[in-house]
């Protein structure tokens, strides 16, 4: 494991700890249904509270472990920062993820159900996703005319098939 991952673990441990504490607090504040004369051990908050405690314990172990390793490895040789080439690769990697994630979110969370026709929206999404992320060297990609045509044909075909199947075979009222 490298130093970066231990830092991530420390932050992750903190997030899990806060989440676990919130779960325990939420469980404690739940109605214990005493008016229904139910045994306190079967109250709705019991299981989530135990899970919250589990989160806290594991989070503490995660933080303790990463802290211990960070102290031991602070002056250890060999753990250097990433080389510039790696940084460039990482930046490319994140650009690609963010572009794909953004397109997916815009399609599924923002535009779907906003009044735009499902078929048209799906064609646009498939086409844009295919051409913008086509190149494995450049983000966004600069596609050739041939690739634009392939993406357009694919988008039209898939969107039509999916729309017809779900609309007329599965009888789904499309958003």
């Amino acid at each position, binding site marked *: 494991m490298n130093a970066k991952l231990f830092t991530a673990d420390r932050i992750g441990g903190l997030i899990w700890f806060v989440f676990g504490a919130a779960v325990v607090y939420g469980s404690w504040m*739940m*109605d214990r249904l005493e008016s229904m004369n*139910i045994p306190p051990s079967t109250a*709705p*908050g*019991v299981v989530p509270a135990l*899970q919250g405690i589990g989160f806290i314990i594991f989070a503490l172990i995660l933080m303790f472990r990463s802290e211990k390793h960070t102290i031991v490895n602070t002056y250890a040789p060999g753990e250097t920062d990433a080389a510039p080439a790696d940084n460039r690769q990482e930046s490319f990697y994140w650009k690609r993820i963010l572009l794909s994630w953004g397109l997916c979110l815009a399609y599924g969370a923002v535009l779907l159900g906003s009044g735009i026709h499902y078929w048209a929206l799906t064609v646009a999404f*498939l086409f844009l996703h295919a051409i913008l992320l086509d190149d494995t060297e450049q983000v966004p990609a600069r596609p050739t005319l041939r690739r634009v045509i392939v993406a357009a044909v694919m988008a039209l075909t898939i969107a039509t098939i999916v729309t017809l199947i779900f609309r007329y075979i599965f009888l789904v009222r499309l958003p």
Partner: protein
Amino acid sequence: MFDGLYMFGIAVTGYLTPVSLGLAFGATLLGLLAGCMPGLSATLIITLLTTLTLKMQPNQAILVLVCAYNGAIYGGSRTAILLNIPGTAANAAACLDGYQLARQGQAGRAMGIATTGSVLGTLFGLICLALFTPMLGEIALSFGAFEFFWLALLGVVTSGNLVAVDPLKGWLAGLLGLFVAGIGQDGMYAYERFSFGNADLAGGFGLIPVLVGAFGFSEVLTVMSERFARPKIMEFGSAIPRIRDVIVYWRTIIRSGVIGVWIGILPGVGEDMAAWSSYAAAKRLSKEPEKFGKGSIEGLMAAETGDNASVPGGIIPALALAIPGSAPCAVLLAAMIIHGVQAGPMLMVENPQFVYDVVAMVLFSTLGILFFGLFFIKPLLKITQIPRSILMPIIFVLCVIGSYALASRLFDVYTMLGFGTLIFIMRQYGYPAAPFVLGLVLGDILDKNLRRGLVLSDGDLLPFFTRPLSALLALLVLWTFITNVKTINDLMVWGRDALWARVWPKRSTT
């Protein structure tokens, strides 16, 4: 015994219709194609197919899912052999010797061995499925709430322990799955937990949208983020298996079958572990261990027999105990619940025919593997040439419409997107998705049985530790925790030393 054979006969003849056969072979082929595509897991294809088979008859829908599952696990061996890229995680072990054989000009032979191993492994698992599911179901009838609580917890703990590189992260992912399963109205008093007055949240998160997010959307993002050059396919000859290879390595086949089924039965472990364990056992007991990793027929046979044997193996606890043996089985179990099939100890009492129906489904998928594996090689490999930038948005569109089609509500699409993003981020930092899914499926069983047990014992925790089987399961859970967390281990060693220092000061100082 004869009742079982009779029911199996009914199941086989029941599926001998053009529609059922078409569905079985079509789904096996679809699974094979998905398995061939690096990045598309068996879990992803089953999850997507679950949403596409909702309107089908339960038996036909489960037939499609079982066939696709088995096909996907086998399909990954193709790319493992020809491209050194495992199609699914289960085929990673096949890369070691399969690719070496291909480089030596024996790609056709390697594919023949993979097909033979997969078919024989599945057939061995199929026999175990038919024999052990009723037996396990009968034993499970004596299980009470206490035992089921520990079984559910053991499933999540084992999965977290074996699937993740870091068990702690596996358990955290499993715990998150258990927590998410508890959101919404609880199963005993219909009290709304963590819904914050939201009507959609009060009904809880739908199992399928969360699964589609965890295995569909998160994989789309993962695959899109990777650099991947279009692979060049090697030349290969005939893939017809040689009888000699089967006869010479019959011990390896049986051993790998046993290991595969056993690992399949272990809750939440999965096919990849079955393949690696079978491979390791074969290497240890081989007369030619030096050939392993350099193109060993025995190694490839062991890996492929092990992973496919674990497919029926994983279905055994899913049917008998409602505890899935692997992540794809968890999705299969969720699909059964959606289609009204109540898996668990009562299945053999209320609907024993269904168990043999599943055995017949596995048989048809095996026949499909044999057929497509031997006679449909080149078209299968064409699929690897499809660019990811084309394939991934198609999968995402299916994820969206599949989640939406369940109840025609956009909340399920948002659920899919939210959990997909969360699982993607968690995977980037070493938290696996499989324990999360196990937790999600087992959350309800764990919650209900813990509270039922507490009602039965009047709030007393002792029966959870004093009933013989409960005690054994509790010990297994505790042992897994203690032996895998270094911090707890260190504390125990420190405690032991401190105790010795008090009891026997002289000895402890020497």
